């Protein structure tokens, strides 16, 4: 039980404990016994901004994980959509890192109890197709596409690793649903600090040349980054190849990518320079459609059509 709430502070078990204790927002802000939880919340947020994979674990008092998770969510929501995205991503990764310690039974309980996912088990696990789809659309890569899955009578075959990855997506989505509320002073102060730090990190982001008339697929990808959403590997590749081909510099693209919730300067700049060195062309419209990146017919035959 403690293991579950420690690793999955978003779980129904954790929510039940909070409810039993009747914890209020005021408690979360002022209760001196929750000082440690507030510190942990701040650390969660800073780790999320800095892209650290810092695993906070208060084994002595697992409830601190739950309190700090909750506080961090509320603070991130107050700071704004991009910050919330970033935290959601951080928590999803944290869950991925830690959940390998959970047994299959625990993972399955988490799926059904917390997220209402329907599962069947023989030697492998089968997940109801609607729940699978809600999870997989946030995950890039061919193996996650439904077309590459075994689907029988409304259930999709998955393994334990897949289940963890899908649960991480659900955890992410749940954080993104956090409502924006006014915070009591001590939490608001953390929000201010986090907001400043975040702004500083993002500062150079949108200094870039004029947009011109980009195709809608590219506009959509840029809009997503602006909202602080994640993109799949293929989406990042397509965008990078396109922007390099219309004359953006590597630094300009890097600055744009600072908006990613999982931004990592080292990895990103390596990938961008790699694409640049190989002189990749942006994918064909057909490929974009297959990758699910084409928002609809725009009349162009290829991405660079009509661009000087």
């Amino acid at each position, binding site marked *: 039980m403690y293991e579950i709430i420690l690793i999955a502070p978003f779980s129904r078990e954790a929510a039940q404990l909070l409810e039993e204790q009747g914890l209020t927002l005021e408690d979360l802000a002022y209760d001196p016994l929750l000082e440690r939880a507030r510190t942990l919340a701040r650390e969660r947020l800073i780790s999320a901004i800095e892209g650290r994979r810092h695993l906070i674990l208060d084994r002595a008092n697992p409830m601190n994980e739950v309190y700090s998770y909750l506080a961090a969510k509320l603070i991130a929501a107050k700071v704004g959509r991009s910050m919330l995205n970033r935290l959601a991503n951080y928590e999803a990764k944290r869950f991925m890192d830690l959940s390998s310690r959970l047994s299959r039974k625990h993972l399955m309980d988490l799926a059904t109890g917390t997220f209402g996912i329907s599962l069947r088990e023989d030697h492998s696990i089968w997940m109801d197709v609607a729940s699978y*789809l809600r999870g997989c659309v946030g995950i890039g890569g061919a193996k996650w596409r*439904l*077309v*590459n899955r075994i689907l029988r009578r409304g*259930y999709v075959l998955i393994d334990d690793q897949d289940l963890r990855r899908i649960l991480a997506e659900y955890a992410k989505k749940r954080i993104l649903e956090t409502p924006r509320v006014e915070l009591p002073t001590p939490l608001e102060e953390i929000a201010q600090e986090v907001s400043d730090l975040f702004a500083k990190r993002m500062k150079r982001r949108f200094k870039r040349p004029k947009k011109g008339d980009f195709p809608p697929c590219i506009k959509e990808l840029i809009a997503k980054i602006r909202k602080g959403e994640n993109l799949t590997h293929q989406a990042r590749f397509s965008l990078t190849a396109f922007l390099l081909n219309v004359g953006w510099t590597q630094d300009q693209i890097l600055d744009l990518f600072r908006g990613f919730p999982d931004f990592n300067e080292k990895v990103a700049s390596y990938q961008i320079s790699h694409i640049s060195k190989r002189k990749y062309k942006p994918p064909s419209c057909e490929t974009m459609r297959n*990758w*699910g990146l084409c928002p609809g017919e725009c009349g162009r035959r290829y991405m660079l059509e009509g661009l000087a």
Partner: protein
Amino acid sequence: MMFLERLFASYYRAMAGTIYVSDVPRREFMFRGFDGKVRRHISFHDLSELRKYLMSEPPLHAYYSVSLYRRPTAPMEEKEPIRAELLFDIDSTDFEDEGCEKDSIWRCKDCGYTGRGIKPSECPKCGSERIDVNHWLNERCISLTKLEVRKLMNSLDEEFGVDLDAIAISYTGNRGFHVRVTEGPLTSLGKEERREIAFYMMGRGFEPSLFMTVDDKGRISLLMENGVMRRAIELLSSKPHMVRVSPILKEKLVTLTSGRSVRLNSRERRALTNLLREEALRSGAKIDWMVTMDTGRLTRIPNSIHGKTGFRALSLTLEDYEVFDPFKDAVGLPAEPEVKVRVTLDVPTFRLKGENFGPYSPGDEVNLPGYAAAFLVLRGRAEST
């Protein structure tokens, strides 16, 4: 155009009782009138109000939203969707099939050059890409699209586990069919999720290498549990497309598809992967994925009249779609009064309600039963005199 309106009105007067849309008060409706005007964001309290509307103002085209909304009459952003039918659109116009298009007539918008059959990508005379097509429809269009309906039905049943009671099939009234899932968990999915379903049906994005295993001796075998893989293999084993691979690979392919493993060099492996990818697409259902994805879609009301044919967009049971013949079963407009029309474009022989008509040439003036006259006028091949 007056005669058309009268025919449509008489259809709705007699047949409005067959119009059925579930959850009427939660839907948005759209109508295109004979004056060309479009009315959107309309809602009705109940089915009988909808039917009365169709009787009093018979439209050329009648649509309803696949989505249920809390506020169906609000602008799109404020409608508050609740859930939406999962819609598959099969239209033979997308198939580019020679038989189906043999009586279609295309015309270059720039130089006026015309021809028959599949529209060329550019005008053979002036090179322009601006080409209009006047499509015709024949039995071939219908039999082709029925095959796709069957694929969807099999997959929805066996793979997606959809309750057959929650599936509705209807003829579009023109060159294809609509298949809808009306209830159940799939109706609460968003756009991205629906695209995954559409791509699954189409075999699009299929990656065969994910279903190849290599044993310690370097021998490859295929995993057949994936439905797309199974369909690709079935098609491959059913011969004609196999002609393009080398005899050696062909032999190995037979071994592989019978469930045994073979050694493949990297070139053969690449060839096999490409082949399977192509067969996956070829064996997939030919649907318009953008329709499936679009939860804001408006779609033709079952049993209403299609304004480009005068045919009924007939709702069909799972049993009778296979034997359905639109040229008999979907003729909905009355025969009376007879109407005299002047032919403006070549008309091939066609059969309606068991009676043969045509062929006609431009300039011919003929007296036809109301439904046949309406068919020619609505298809843009004749005008009323």
